[in-house]
């Protein structure tokens, strides 16, 4: 039983938002009936266009946003209706990296405090095996994120975009999570920086056997990093499966359109 229990199990998950003004005022279903399992060690990419509900779905998995209806379980325990203090297992094992490190890092905190903040959380400390020596852990994760130790004394605004995203990654890794959720983590970065950060993700996920859920609009990035993919359109998962199978043999029309729209470097070789 326990071997086949998925890390995340989502059943008929729905989330609606209310829009007060403008065209389309009323209730909008951002996520509209999603069933999804994420197994331990799986590297799942969730792709779709803006408004497809992919970020909302990820946020519900992180219990930042609650579903309007449906069930979400983490390791067999419901998290959709749990009280904050009952989310200990989730909060201590799951970490998240956001798209824009400018807004996800506290501008008034030094890098050292940003990175070690999760270690001060009672939920993480209560886990027992959490890193106790915060200063040692700081140096360790900065090195893993390929950052110089002296960056610890700096503020986010003193760093480049790529460095900031590495700080966000170091922070997520600090409490030694089993699951990493990432929402468009390289979309705001230059291609040259993107390559560095993607290499870092691939190395870390592999070295630690992390369960990884990556939300992205860039199909090439998802294909590079993930082993499976779920394609979302208008709040639903329209197709899912092993990444190579979906990319080579898309079955759903929307997946085909999405893949055909990706600009490729025009081949001039002859």
């Amino acid at each position, binding site marked *: 039983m326990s071997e086949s229990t998925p890390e995340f199990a989502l059943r008929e998950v729905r989330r609606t938002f209310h829009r007060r003004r*403008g065209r389309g005022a009323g209730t909008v279903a951002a996520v509209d009936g999603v069933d999804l399992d994420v197994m331990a060690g799986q590297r799942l990419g969730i792709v779709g266009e803006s408004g497809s509900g992919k970020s909302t779905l990820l946020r519900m998995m992180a219990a930042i946003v609650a579903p309007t209806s449906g069930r979400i379980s983490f390791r067999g325990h419901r998290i959709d209706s749990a009280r904050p203090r009952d989310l200990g297992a989730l909060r201590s094992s799951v970490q998240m990296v956001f798209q824009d490190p400018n807004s996800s890092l506290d501008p008034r905190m030094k890098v050292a405090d940003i990175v070690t903040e999760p270690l001060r959380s009672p939920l993480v400390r209560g886990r027992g095996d959490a890193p106790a020596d915060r200063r040692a852990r700081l140096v360790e994760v900065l090195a893993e994120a390929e950052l110089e130790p002296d960056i610890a004394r700096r503020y986010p605004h003193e760093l480049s975009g790529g460095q900031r995203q590495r700080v966000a990654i170091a922070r997520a890794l600090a409490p030694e999570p089993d699951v990493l959720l990432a929402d468009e983590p390289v979309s705001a970065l230059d*291609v040259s920086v993107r390559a560095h950060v993607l290499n870092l993700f691939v190395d870390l996920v592999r070295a630690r056997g992390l369960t990884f859920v990556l939300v992205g609009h860039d199909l*090439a990035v998802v294909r590079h990093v993930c082993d499976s993919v779920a394609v979302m359109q208008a709040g639903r998962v329209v197709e899912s499966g092993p990444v190579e199978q979906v990319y080579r043999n898309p079955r759903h029309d929307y997946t085909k359109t999405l893949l055909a729209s990706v600009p490729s470097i025009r081949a001039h070789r002859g």
Partner: protein
Amino acid sequence: MTELLSVENMVVGFEGASRPTIGGISFTLRAGQRLGLIGESGSGKSVTALALMGLLPDTAHLSGSVRLAGRELVGLGDAKMARIRGREMSMVFQEPMTALDPTMRVGRQVAEVVRLHCARTGSGHTRERVCRMLEEVGLPDAERIADSYPFQLSGGQRQRVMVAMALINRPELIICDEPTTALDVTVQARVLDVLDRGLREVGAACLFISHDLAVVSQICDDVIVMYRGQIVEAGPVAVLLDHARHPYTRGLVATARLDEVAPGARLRVIEDFWDASQERR
């Protein structure tokens, strides 16, 4: 006269900056030619576009020479520059939500571009022309779109309106600054298609600024690579993609080609080709 646009030793500096943002660049654009301008953030792509359009802020200092159809633009007064903008050259910005006036129906905004430059057209005629242009950029419901405010349109529709504004006076040069970067891929594909057909129909030359090599390779014949305010390499897209001379260009091309690397394998980075520290003198 073969050159439509000729830029010679253009330097742009900002007050208080230790080094110029654009450090003396030169390039030319023939009538009808499509030239891509690629580089990372901060390389000076957008400042180049603003300098050509005469839209630099007052804190900037521009020198060198920019000639459009033989006419020197550097040092030209605001009023004269305004007459050239929108008629002889126009621009499509990255973010149509900030480029469009939020308080004005988009039909009027497109019409304004026409009226500013052709005093004699009557308003009924202008309206007709605006709607025809909106249809040409793939907005079949032109009447309704023209009567909408920007916030009532989707990102793709807004960018089509921008393209319509840029094309409507049939300028000789259109400068596009990351025109599809803010759009979803399926929308991007359609907007690029509209832009491609529009440019061909009008016969306009295009300076196409983008960080996305794939997009540039779809639209442009030639490309310029900028790095820290300098042009490091220029040439036909095909040559640059496969036989770049400058190591920085080779690195930039390699990082953009996720498709050439096996999934999960290490991606090449610019530093594999080019050590930035040797450049920082």
